[in-house]
């Protein structure tokens, strides 16, 4: 697999040895290669954080923007040029904390973008504060008596907000990871993949072993088009945590329903009709 994914390779990373991000990066390269994409076809978008460095480590176009703000420019990029495959790789804090409002509303907007959340259940780059998905009671440098808050359930919230593709996987399950990544990228619309990612430096609770122990793959006969089933799977987050594609139904994407874009001609290629400005000026005379 090494040679085939090397199209997408760049230089060394700044992550800690043992970090789950490495497997996610490898999986991403493999998925893109297997999908037959070229670096120039792909736009990687991120916020700020450890996960958000991913676009720096893969050979593709890259928009490394602001903390919490990856989804709006990603959606806009797809609106501007739908020939690009737009992929967001960023963190749980970035996606669900600072970026929570964009999370909800870009699900509704449903541009054809793929959102890979490296969910290490912690703020990694800023050294270990509780993120929205940190377990209740977990001790951190700024939650010294334990994180008091109910963890955010991104799967359930995405379903509630109307996402058409919702999946969860684990960096330690490369087969499933790549499979889901490919399906998510191919989905026409907003696709969420929440990826458990051990942070060896700051999350001593949700370790590789912990995920390994708690995660299970959805049964073969699981029906990802059944919303009620998805809702109940989404609520399982205890001894056992389901991974796989929890929900997958077609939903008309932004570009396909937009009056100007639905003809499939990218916005960047469209031209202002001749004489339109003259006509518009006439309206005012």
């Amino acid at each position, binding site marked *: 697999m090494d040679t085939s994914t090397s199209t997408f390779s760049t*230089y060394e990373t700044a992550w800690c040895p043992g970090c789950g991000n490495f497997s996610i990066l490898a999986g991403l390269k493999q998925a893109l290669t297997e999908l037959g994409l*070229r*670096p*120039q*076809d792909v*736009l990687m*978008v991120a916020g*700020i954080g450890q996960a958000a*460095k991913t*676009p*720096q480590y893969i*050979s*593709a*176009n*890259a*928009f*490394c*923007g*602001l903390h919490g*703000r990856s*989804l*709006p*420019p*990603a*959606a*806009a*990029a797809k*609106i*501007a*040029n739908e*020939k*690009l495959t737009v992929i967001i790789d960023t963190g749980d804090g970035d996606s669900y904390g600072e970026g929570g*409002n*964009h999370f*909800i*509303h*870009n699900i509704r907007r449903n541009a054809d973008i793929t959102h890979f959340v490296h969910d290490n259940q912690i703020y990694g780059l800023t050294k270990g504060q509780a993120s929205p998905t940190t377990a209740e009671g977990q001790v951190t440098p700024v939650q010294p008596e334990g994180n008091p808050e109910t963890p955010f359930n991104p799967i359930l919230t995405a379903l509630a907000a109307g996402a058409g593709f919702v999946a969860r996987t684990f960096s330690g399950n490369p087969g499933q990871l790549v499979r889901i990544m490919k399906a998510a990228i191919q989905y026409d619309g907003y696709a969420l993949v929440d990826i458990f990612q051990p942070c060896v430096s700051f999350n001593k609770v949700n370790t590789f072993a912990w995920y390994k122990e708690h995660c299970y793959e959805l049964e073969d006969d699981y029906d990802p088009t059944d919303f009620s089933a998805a809702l109940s799977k989404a609520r399982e987050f205890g001894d056992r945590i389901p991974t796989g594609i929890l929900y997958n139904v077609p939903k008309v994407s932004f570009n396909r329903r*937009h*009056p*100007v*874009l639905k003809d499939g001609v990218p*916005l*960047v290629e*469209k*031209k*202002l*009709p001749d004489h*339109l*400005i*003259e006509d*518009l*000026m006439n309206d*005012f*005379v």
Partner: protein
Amino acid sequence: MYNLLFGGAAGQGVETTVAVLEQIIKRSGSSIFTVKDFMSRVRGGHNFSLLRFGNTPIRSHTDELTGIIALTEETVELHRDQLIDGGFILCDSQLKIDDPRAIKIDMAVRARRLGNPRVSGIIAVGILMKLFGFETNGAEEVLAKHIKKQYLNINVQALHEGFDLVERRFDNPGGNFAQDMILTGSQAMALGALAGGLKFYSAYPMSPSTALMEYLAPHAHEARIVVEQAEDEIAAAMMAVGASYTGARAMTGTSGGGFALMVETLGLSGMAEIPTVFVDVQRPGPVTGLPTRTEQSDLKFVVSASQGEFPRLVIAVRHHADAFYQTIRALNLAEKYQIPVILLSDQYLGDASGTVPRFDLNKVRPLPVGNTPADLEPGQEYLRYRVTESGISPRLLPGQSEHLVLIDSDEHDEKGWITESAEVRISQVDKRARKLKLLETELQEPDFIGTEDFHTLLLGWGSTYGPIEEAVATLNQQDSGGYAALLFGDVYPLPQRLLKEKASQAKEIIDVEQNSTAQFAGLVREYSGIKCDREILKYDGRQIMAKEIVSQVLQQA
């Protein structure tokens, strides 16, 4: 020049009456200028519009009234003292108004008799046309533009009925503005955006900036652009930046409170060198302030918004034509220098409608978006942030060639990779700074108006253009000359050639601003060292009038 005040509660339909009358006046050749004084509510309260018309270009309002068209008694109460000699009050006979100047007409009864109580406003239009000697031919065409087909006939009847009720009182001003357009400052700006090649507009509703989206959205389909209402202003700005990066010329618009939320994104546009135009249609602050009124108090804010240092351009639009041309220029300069450009407008200019000659599309032509691989030096590696002499680096678009385009909010090297190197940091800061130096060579000097042999120099910027222009003309008539003004459009970086030249000639420099702290005077002092001798400031949410400027100029400090 004549000046009419139309007053009533929100929701009483003053707007249509005024819009129809504006068109009729203009078609008969006169110039018009209309401003709104509206409360922040949908129904009730006291709102009014001022419609000024004449046979010379008008770019400001006044509160000296030829006539009051009153839908409520409160309107008369509040404004009767502003009537000039020979002025009139037009109102329905049902209103309890005791004023010898009142022309009371049973408009409501007549409208009901005609079959629709809502046409009483058009009866008033007919009356006013007669009073000012306008002809009724052509009026039907105007009505057809504003009124649904099924109601057209009855409105035409109403107009004629009103016309026949009174006798002419005033000379028709005449003029040759019949071929002009009537539009608002915001419409001029939106049209400029389309002419400037806009492909993507994103915004979150906020008065008084929503007018931009309200013009663009209904024309998006035919213009083949995307207009997107975002979930908040942060998203609106970030979408504009994302679209622009990808190659769709982009703009976002808001007012001060929304701009506050765009501040971080502004910096991203500067750091990542993604051309983006941010429109701030100012209203009185701080925070929610007076949402439907006017002020020029965001200047210092937008000039230094966002952490760190990066080049930017701030252009304050001054009048309707300026709004159009400067918007195209803003999009072009954003593109050329790969920087954020901030267009400052305000509620006054944004909502005021006026007669403007058709825009000349050859005057400013939109630049192409980004570079293409053909623009690169052959054989060279593509570097998004190549260090160049001008500071401008080749901007390719992602997905349009085999070259990858990397942008980053962290400090980055020429390739776009995150760096911690001190040397690279310095070279990129300097590179970005050089763009500002270059930009400074093509700034627009302010408009100079007034007499060449002046002793008193007024400084103004943005929408006070009209009031100051009128004030200087008045002063030069009344006070035997000696007055001039510099009216700035480009405010940051500050063009200084004319400023220094004229300032050295001035005995007194008077700063005129629509805010309470003389923000522009501060910029002038910081960058040119020139200190204004006096300031004329207004900050009650109502635009300053020429006569206020005149009286304050003349009243020695």
